[in-house]
């Protein structure tokens, strides 16, 4: 755990809360995501000033504003690339992306393959309510077929995207799913995701009671199944992870299918930053260039007298 800074004295979860009252509807799943995050921060003894939480736009993307950390509420779909810039600039920061299923998998979906395959050491937490909440009820890429949305009043005819399988295909090195109705599981998964060196993705099933009347707490309660504890899945096994992942959405079609939660995959391997360091070493890069070094870059453009 030496790759991130820790406090000597643990702070309480409440110390990671900001004084802004969440604007979420009563009963929104996202409340407990914030609770789990602050608990994870506390247990990991993260200094608040070393946490940068980056979000896009959506109900879920308000989450960073309700916590005490450096919070970067960006534009719709752009949390990930802004977070990449932050992490590249200062690898000592704990950079967490707080996003929603629309933000991450619709408008933002072009950024995911590239952060994942490069194994940039970020933690991406997607509050997946299978709907666009903030814009008042449109289907999202993770919505089940037939779900009602204001632009698809006939019930959507789109096959949903599988977030877990997609991130696995991209080469993410930590891929998990949890459920905001299970705070303990969620906290544990988020902790592990933060501790993981490399690109971590956590899909949080986080119901929107206001607009999604199908994928509710009640719906999930009886269905979630811990793939690690209950099914004995070993997260180092990539092909098993894939196979499990491809059944992630079975419950959309089969009322008896379970909703898998847990860590699908986890593999510690070189991060992008490790590789950057290797290149920098080859280049004899310095941290603070001297004026002489800078002058030498300019002088290199003199007509080549030899």
């Amino acid at each position: 755990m030496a790759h991130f800074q820790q406090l000597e004295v643990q702070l309480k979860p409440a110390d990671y809360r900001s004084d802004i009252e969440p604007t979420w509807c009563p009963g929104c799943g996202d409340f407990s995501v914030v609770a789990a995050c602050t608990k994870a921060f506390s247990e990991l003894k993260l200094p608040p000033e070393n946490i940068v939480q980056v979000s896009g736009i959506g109900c879920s993307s308000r989450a960073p504003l309700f916590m005490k950390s450096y919070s970067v509420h960006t534009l719709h779909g752009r949390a990930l690339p802004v977070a990449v810039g932050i992490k590249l600039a200062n690898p000592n920061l704990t950079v967490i992306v707080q996003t929603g299923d629309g933000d991450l998998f619709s408008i933002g979906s072009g950024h995911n393959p590239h952060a994942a395959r490069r194994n940039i050491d970020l933690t991406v937490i997607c509050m997946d309510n299978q709907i666009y909440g903030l814009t008042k009820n449109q289907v999202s890429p993770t919505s089940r077929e037939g779900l009602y949305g204001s632009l698809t009043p006939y019930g959507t005819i789109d096959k949903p995207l599988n977030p877990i399988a997609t991130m696995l295909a991209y080469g993410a090195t930590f891929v998990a799913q949890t459920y905001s109705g299970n705070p303990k599981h969620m906290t544990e998964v988020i902790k592990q995701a933060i501790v993981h060196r490399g690109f971590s993705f956590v899909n949080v099933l986080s119901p929107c009671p206001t607009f999604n009347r199908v994928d509710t707490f009640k719906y999930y309660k009886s269905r979630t199944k811990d793939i690690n504890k209950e099914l004995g899945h070993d997260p180092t096994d990539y092909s098993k992870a894939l196979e499990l992942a491809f059944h992630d959405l079975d419950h959309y079609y089969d009322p008896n299918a379970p909703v898998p939660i847990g860590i699908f995959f986890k593999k510690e391997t070189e991060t992008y930053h490790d590789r950057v360091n290797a290149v920098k070493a080859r280049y004899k890069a310095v941290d603070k260039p001297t004026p002489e070094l800078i002058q030498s870059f300019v002088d290199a453009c003199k007509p080549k007298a030899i």
Partner: protein
Amino acid sequence: MAFDLTIKIGGEGGEGVISAGDFLTEAAARAGYEVVNFKSFPSEIKGGYSQSTVRISDVKKYSTGDGFDILCCFNGEAYEYNKKHLKPGTVLVYDSSDFEPEEHEGVITYPVPLSELAREVMKAYITKNVIALGVLCELFKIPAKPIKDSIKAKFMRKGEDVVNMNYRALDVGMNYVRENLEKRDPYSFPPPKEPKDVVIMEGNQAVAKGAVVAGCKFFAAYPITPATTVGNYIVDDLIKAGGWLYQAEDEIAAMAMAIGASHAGLKSMTATSGPGMCLKTELFTYAGMAEIPVVIVDVQRVGPATGMPTKHEQGDLHHTVYAGHGDYPKAVLAPTNVEENFYLTIEAFNLAEKYQMPVFLLTDASLSLRAEAFPTPNVSKIKLENRWLYNPAEDPEGRYIRNGRFLRFALFTEDGITPMGVPGDPNAIHAITGLEHQENSDPRNRPDIRTLQMEKRMKKLEKLLREDADRFYEFDAPFEKADIGVITWGLTASITKEAVDRLRSRGVKVNALYMKMLWPVRADLVEDFAKRAERIAMPETNWSGQLADILKQETHIRPITFNIYRGEPMIPSEVEGFIDYLLDNPEITEGRLTAADVFGKEKVYGLI
């Protein structure tokens, strides 16, 4: 008489046309001359027509002139492209193993079987360009020593054999002239002078070097012609200086990353061209709203849409100044030559950090490829601005902390500028958001807060106009009351300088203003300039007269614009012709003219 010679080399891309021009350029600089070199590539990846125009002079020239004195054609295509410009007195050196030119009255021709010499004598076709250089050296008394030095410097890493082969090729060319040709033209180089301490940079290279000097530590790239080479040029220096270049998945991501890296404390930039500018726009407004310093380089090309990607146009100014939903503070700089590419890039970083906002640098496809020799910058003399970070010791009353919250967007400073905080600092924990926000960053919809924050942000530009704008106005206005006052920008300014010299030498009273900060505008300076001229003339290489539009809106001037939108820079004689036309037509006091209006529809494309 002043020495001023323009040599144009044309041929197939990949035949060494460009590097022949580069050798000449370096040699001229090493021989103590002023030199500027303009390259143009085909849009095809391989092959197609390439050319390199080298202008060598004893006083600095900013354009490559109207044409050339000496044309060296590597093939018949180059001849076809250029033959309409062969005037009496010009010299044509050509590959006589490839083609024979038509009769051109008064043109002095030197046939040299370049390909044959390369293939038969040198047994290496790739030495054709160096053979040609040898021919030029011998014909025009160009000192061979500096050329040889350049050859050595370039080929050294390929081994001694390659160097020697090229030396021999140079000799082959020189010998061919000695043995077969008789000099019949008046052009020859004066003896070498004391070499000056200069650097030679290409436009995009100067941006790259300037950025590293300015302290840039993060460059977010996405390839796009003609901006890509800014990244090519910066990457090694940047890594050595502890920074990083990241090739993003698209321009939106690149802009987002630059914003992220800046928020995390680094001086950050991105470089792109028109299509990328469009994609990044939403994030420009975010940088404005969240008050993030960031530098955006736009190497303009011809639009709209994909347009003509390798060609020159000054068509992104409207976009840079006016795009984005809602108003946000920004500055727009535009260098007129390669040296300014270097220095204005540094200025861009300084302004971005000082005013905590996006700053744009507009260059263009032609400027990006132009090489110039200019005095070697001394980096220790260059002033750098670093960002104002919150420091509790400087805030004994705790004005910037309220209820334990850092007031990143405090409203009480006079100039709208407030200290920043960088992640990692426990004293300045705060949020940034694209939502309208109150002093402590919390989102708010209140009309009063909205109004005040809007005013805070925009006030920064007032300070900029007071403190940092006038040095970007280059006045060359010797006449108390000129007939014409020319205002222009970017590469067109370089070209206009030469036109102005010519007009004045003919007794025309013309004042000139070269604007290098295009937004915000010092209306007072522009209007004072305008008062000292009967009429204002504004040449621009775009359809609508984009700077003219801005000035019409920001000042009281009513210019006559001259708009060329053919994808190539103007040439000095066009600007000259435009001004002459105005002098001939005193009734024109405002409006828009195109090349067809001034030169007639048929003649237009014959000019260039």
